[in-house]
């Protein structure tokens, strides 16, 4: 791994993002608009909003990073730039970490703006803000790693976009946000146990509703880091220096 390879990749990806004003605007503005919408959906039921909004806020970077990374990596594969890069001295890990850094900046901007709106203006309780932001960061990285992995299985941007409803939406449905997991049919609860988003939601929900951070949050975080490492290894394995 080299810092110059990593940093120059991060700078390159950021320059690409910076030139794409519409994408940046969507990344930054959409979550805040959605959370504001949610606030008025539960107008007069502040308690419900307070329970739902913080975990939603923490899950959003997962979705954004999944989709942005899978499309960006797909472009890298189909435009021939990946093949060119593989013929240069750059290490695969430099490429992955470079992407993570650049998209990490985007996720930071997104969570920063959405947190300001949600906690500052919409009145949701900002409990354990540092732990909360850490979990949101983890959720962003996980989305990125899974997006990198998913991109290897898409041949077109149409397919890459469809991975969102196919692989991410089911995780959202059973993560406990809509129906508490304890009330689900046995097999659904079992299914939710193997999805990373379940642990993200559980940790975010606990952090934002409890007075003290329960130990369960630490266990969730460990599971999430495990998922992250596994996804990164799988994602890196799909970046082949030599292909058929």
């Amino acid at each position, binding site marked *: 791994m080299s810092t*110059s*390879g990593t940093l*120059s*990749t991060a*700078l*390159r990806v950021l*320059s*690409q993002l910076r*030139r*794409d004003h519409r994408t940046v605007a969507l990344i930054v503005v959409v979550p805040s608009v959605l959370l504001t919408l949610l606030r008025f959906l539960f107008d007069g039921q502040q308690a419900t909003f307070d329970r739902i909004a913080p975990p939603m806020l923490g899950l959003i970077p997962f979705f954004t990073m999944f989709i942005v990374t899978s499309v960006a990596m797909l472009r890298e594969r189909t*435009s*021939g*730039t990946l*093949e*060119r*890069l*593989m*013929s*240069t*001295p*750059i290490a695969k890990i430099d490429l992955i970490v470079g992407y993570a850094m650049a998209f990490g900046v985007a996720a930071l901007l997104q969570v920063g703006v959405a947190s300001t709106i949600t906690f500052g203006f919409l009145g949701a309780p900002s409990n354990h803000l540092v732990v909360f932001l850490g979990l949101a960061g983890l959720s962003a990285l996980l989305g990125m790693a899974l997006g990198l992995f998913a991109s290897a299985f898409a041949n077109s941007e149409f397919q890459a976009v469809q991975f969102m409803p196919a692989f991410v939406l089911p995780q959202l449905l059973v993560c406990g946000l809509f129906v508490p997991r304890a009330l689900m049919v046995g097999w659904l609860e079992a299914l939710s146990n193997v999805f990373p988003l379940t642990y993200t939601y559980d940790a975010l929900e606990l952090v934002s509703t409890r007075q003290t951070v329960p130990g369960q949050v630490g266990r969730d975080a460990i599971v999430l880091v495990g998922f992250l490492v596994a996804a990164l290894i799988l994602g890196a394995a799909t970046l082949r*220096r*030599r*292909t*058929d």
Partner: protein
Amino acid sequence: MPLSTEGPVIEASHLKVVRGGTTVLPDLSFSVAAGSVTGLLGPSGSGKSTLIRAIVGVQHIAGGEINVLGGPAGRPEVRGRVGYVTQDASVYEDLTVRENLRYFQRIAGSPRDAVEEVIEVVGLADFGNRVVGRLSGGQRSRVSLAAALVGKPDVLVLDEPTVGLDPVLRVELWSTFHRLAESGVTLMVSSHVMDEADECQRLLLMRDGHLVADTTPTGLRDSTGEADLGRAFLRLITHEEAA
């Protein structure tokens, strides 16, 4: 392994490549000396791109060997010394010419001034701050060439670099290639257009994954009695089939 400056720069021996269950290169052997321009010619589908991918180390190899600068192609020490220009312009369309080149310069670890230098070499001095996506096809392929040159390679491998370029640009590019060769760079250029064969010192003629001839433009003319290199190649093939 040290990077050898003596002996052949590119050397294949019994190279075999299988892609998607089909044997593309059954058994290929040749060697290329330093500071020369070698033309890799043959019809579409004859295995030129596969061979080029093997030379730059992005192709799985099923058997035999392919060595570059005295060791296996694509090994980490040699990747910074080999420039690769793919058939399509493989640069970032949403970045400017300069941003693209700056990125590839940093990755290759070559000096910073290399960026401005190669912009001049490929004749894009007036377009440095232009986003690549807004350039013409010919300009884009020159950016792609510059992205390979910016790493100051000792070996430059180009896959059909002149396809779709107008004649004036083609002449300019070839004079750039000759200048590079004079400065000691070893070039291998693939083309399916035989009229470019005259620009090369050495010709490797391919068909169906086999080397049909390893010759020079003069050698090809003499052995076939054809003045036109395209016809000479055809004659060579029909002669081979008859034999």
